[in-house]
């Protein structure tokens, strides 16, 4: 899957989860950039991303994820 397409889909997931249509994510986006992205919302987000791309993150990669770019890297490999 093209990286641009991944980010387009990620934007939709983020917009749904945080109920904010203005969100646009990039490689460097982290939890501190998005209002409401706390550890609890992170659980919902991960699950929604898995559902969107029909993949399952393993624990190790979720633990190591530092920003949206890391997430997109895994999706690029798996999806």
């Amino acid at each position, binding site marked *: 899957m093209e990286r641009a397409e991944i980010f387009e889909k990620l934007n939709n*997931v983020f917009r*749904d*989860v*945080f*109920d904010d249509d203005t969100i646009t994510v990039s490689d460097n986006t982290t939890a501190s950039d998005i209002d409401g992205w706390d550890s*609890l919302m992170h*659980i*919902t987000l991960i*699950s*929604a991303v898995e*559902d969107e791309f029909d993949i399952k993150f*393993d*624990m190790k990669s*979720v*633990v190591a994820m530092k920003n949206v770019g890391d997430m997109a890297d895994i999706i690029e490999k798996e999806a």
Partner: protein
Amino acid sequence: MLKELQYPFDSQLILKKRRSLKKKLLSENKSFIDKNIAILGGSTTHDIAEILELFLLDFGIRPSLYESEFGQWWQDSMFPPKELELFNPDIVFIHTSCRNILNYPSITDNNEKIDEMLNTEFSRYEQAWQALKNKYNPVIIQNNFELPYYRLLGNTDVTDRRGHTNYISRLNTKFSDYAASHDAFYINDINYLSADYGISKWSDPFYWHMYKYCLALDAIPEFAFNLAAIIKSVYGKNKKALALDLDNTLWGGIVGDDGVEGIEIGHETSMGQVYSEFQQYLKELSSIGITLNINSKNEYENAIAGLNHPESTLSPNDFIIIKANWQSKDRNLFEIAKELNIGSDSIVFVDDNPAERAMVSASLPDTCAPDIGSPENYIRILDRSRFFEVTELSSDDVKRNEMYRANVKRAAEQTQFADYGEYLLSLNMKAVIRDFDPVYIPRIAQLTNKSNQFNLTTWRISESEMAEIAKNDRYMRLYGKLSDKYGDNGVITVVIGEKDNDTLHIRLWLMSCRVLKRDMEYAMLDCLVADAKSSGIKKLRGYYYKTAKNTMVKEFYGTLGFDMLEQTDDSSQWILDLNNYQNKNKYIEVER
């Protein structure tokens, strides 16, 4: 009802869009009952609380939620923090799982040791339940346990006492026994839910080790829906009746075209068997008091002929109202509701045709018209929709269909009398009107939670609260039972007054719509006045609080001869001086 929250729902969508769904639910113009619900968890409860809230709002219950600190279910039950005491929960839900079991047998333990272990484990829970009961007298909902994620002994895990599968099953039996012998205590059956969902997926270790969730996030909507179903049932928000289509719903084929011999029902063909099993399921629903009705586009004669098919499990007698005609189905459904004297929101419309379902939903948005899928899925979808979740099964519930049948007979007879009074006399009505009897407390509480139309103040009272009211001298209480030549209606009316010097404030007056226009309210007032006078009361004060459903009784106290004291847009107050009160009941023989 929000389409997104109706079974079969898309769990991911609910999880993802919970924020916008909540906004939508709160912006709907509907009335809610407010309840305080404490969630005491042995694992993370955050998403459970949020998703539970959505389903409850959809059922018309607006919860305030309290969540214990992580894993503190036992400490919060035994030594409640100030915050929980102030919260004073109506419902306590204990969210534990097999991850919370402290003592598991090991392979070196003997049976005595294991029994002792089991009792220790159980008594930890029992202590917590008792402490909660003594403190708040709440409705308690307790998870039982899902089966373990792995089986050390393989298939022997279920037979050997040292096997964790065996151990958990025994613990679950103890929980069930406790629930069966205690009021206002219900099991949230995650043992069934997790099996239904698939234990491998349900107990995904990822969620436990990453977030301390004892179940996978994706399973939470089904979990929360099941829990919400128990709560809405406790507060009387179950459905009461089914309106069923015939062709391709109760049998295969179209009776008008294919003829009675051409429809598929019975054990000759696989499709016939599917419809037979569905009819059997409906018959079982009827046995727990769910009213079956027909709403079909058919010639009446053809409909009856189809139901009289020799292989048909259901026969015309199993239905209370049969609408088989060429009217639109929303109109038929509206008439069924009216004839049964229940709200159209209490009826579930079951039809294989999506166009008919859409039409009924559009014209009666409160009526559930589930997408029942193909015939082999009808039972699963209706069952999982938890329309008829049982928390109390009173003898009245079981008899309900007899009562509706008697009502249909009464209505037929009524047309033969020129004078309504003559008709009432002909019914040979007998009533019992007394102070609350302990055996009727569950039914009385159930009525306060179910009655919407003939209900002056809509005071919802749980069974445990009712037991307190029954003991309190401050209150004057009456329940009324009514029977006639067609049958016994059981307990159908309740009045609770609060004494204040020479005045009795009527805090609750309700009556089941089954017995409207039978003058039962006059008999109740006569008894209330007699009791009031004998305890030195000189005045009755009545209150009417408007809801979306009780305009029927807006002028109730006026018709009983009370004078209005004041009136606002949504309430009124009335007074009756007991001097010179004349008894009003003329047709009912009352036993005190």
